[in-house]
């Protein structure tokens, strides 16, 4: 289990967080109860199982709903 901290472009619309939430929850391997999407700081934090899903795929899923990933850190 690893934890990720992803900095996104500035989130503007109120439904942004809903979209990202939906996109990430549709992936396997992300611990849903650790998922925190911060509207004010445009950051996403969650724990994930690196054997079930790669961080690149997670980033791609976020891109697909229309948001740029600026920096992602995995620990």
């Amino acid at each position, binding site marked *: 289990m690893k934890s990720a901290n992803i900095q996104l472009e500035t989130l503007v619309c109120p439904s942004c967080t*809903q979209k990202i939430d939906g996109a990430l929850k549709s992936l396997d391997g992300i611990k849903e109860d650790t998922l925190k999407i911060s509207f004010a700081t445009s*950051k996403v934090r969650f724990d994930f199982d690196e054997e079930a899903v790669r961080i690149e795929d997670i980033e791609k899923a976020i891109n697909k709903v229309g948001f740029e990933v600026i920096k992602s850190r995995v620990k």
Partner: protein
Amino acid sequence: MQRFIFRNKNKIALINGILIALAFIIRWTAGYMEIFTGLLVAASILGLIPIALQAYQALRVKVVSIDVLVTMAVGGAFAIRNFEESAIVTFLFLFGAYLEQRTLNKTRSAIKALTEMAPETAWKLMDDGEFEEIDIDDVDEGDTLLVKTGAKVPVDGRVLSGEGSINEASITGESIPVAKEAGSGVFAGTLLDNGTLQIVADRVGEDTTFGKIIELVEEAQESKSEAERFIDRFSKYYTPAILLVAILVFLFTRNVELAVTILVLGCPGALVIGVPVSNVAGIGNGASHGVLLKGSEVIRDFSRLDTMIFDKTGTLTQGKPSVAEVQSYGDGIDEARVFLASIERESDHPLALAVLDEIGETDYLEVTDTHVVKGGGITASVGGCRVIVGNQALMTEEGVPLSEQVREDMRRLERSGHSLVLTAVDGELKLLMGIRDPIRPGVADDLESLKKLGVKNLVMLSGDNQGTVDAISSELGLTRAYGHMLPEDKSAYVKDLIGQGEIVAFVGDGVNDSPSLALAHIGIAMGSGTEVAIETSDVVLMNSDFSRLPHALGLVKATSRNMIQNIVIAVGVVLALLASLIFGEWMNMSIGMLVHEGSILVVILNGMRLLRYKLRPSYRLGSRE
């Protein structure tokens, strides 16, 4: 392709706007209706591309977003060949989003300034014995790092070698540089003013004190009040509900115009964004003024405060006792001072330091036959004389006569809150020292400001004797003051007030007062960035700076007001729009979109006012900042 469209959303909005402007110019000057319509169709299609794409992405993850409503509305307008409206709505929506992003970035700038103080690189000692600059994320605990003059300390750690002075303002708020040498602790985010240090990393990244402060501020902005949680739940069902209403209206009336207008009017906007914007701006203002507010619940409670309780020592007073007055009797005084200093030099009593400070540098004599009388003082032999240092009880016990003049001086000093140290040499009283813990400069003015801001009761609780407590209380104009209070008495008092339905804040130093800090609705720690203070309290005054309190209270009150204003604006706009749709003739989807985007901007701009918030001069007393 998709990324290209999103990256160029602003350009699309611009071209879209130019096309619309061109269309209207041609219509009014030349009157070519075909060109006018053609340009508007082009503008509508161009503008719809990014919106429809966002709508599609939202629907794919089962979210009915604003984009979905707008896409359907534009599609509907297209279907009834109302290209004027479809073009204008896409432009307003895109342009509004652009303005929102610009202004929202501003509200978040205060936090950004804080996070940008975080170090980004570090010089790490590599296996070959050379230092190499690496990214801060690659630093591990136990690494040896080099910090050069003018650089930021990258981690929390200890100095291995070297000397230097560090400005720790980012952690403690104290900008006077602190000297560091081998063994000293250093904090991430502080600045090495001069010197060069080699340090070993104990804590890195988010585990450092600075990292925790940032995390705390970020989390505070995210924490949601009950009202916000309600709005969140509400908007989740609200948007699909609007969609449903629009479809029903269309099915029953077959009036596309009306259905699409409902779609646009129903866009949730100001309501969803209004409260978080106030929160973010308020907490951001606090962070840049040395006041950490832990979230919106804190803001709500703090703004409705009834009673503020203060710990005395270290909060209202400086926590450093010093000699305020010296009275001497008879001759041989200089000799007596040397005796006193020689004895106090060997004592670890808290008042001894104050006495030594007062006497200053002197030649110390050998002290023999030292005898410590518990709760009384010390007797000893110095320079062939028998010397007694202590309180009145000890003097009486040792048979030292106290003249009427001495008794008079003692009564006066005790009444004004001094602790007394008497010195007798060979059975004769020579010195009387009044020691007191001075009140922090400016505290009286700050308390007055708090009263003006609407705090009903100012209460002081102290473990000190009632005489001292009363003296300080009357000097500061407190409502009530109690002495002889142990930490558990203090928390019992807090509990009692809460039981009476008051909203209570406790201001203390975070360590020994933590039960009271935790019990009170708002625990305010005068922490110099210590971890305990940061974690146990709801509000942290970063630099232990008491004068931040009035700013903090004024700020939370302003933030609360701001939130209410935003909710009123948002709800008012929705009601006005609905009313005009039902009762008015002039409402259409372009006007609806204009008002909708306008109201979002109004609440953001209103929230932004908090960034510039400063305590009004009428609340600020004295000349201090």
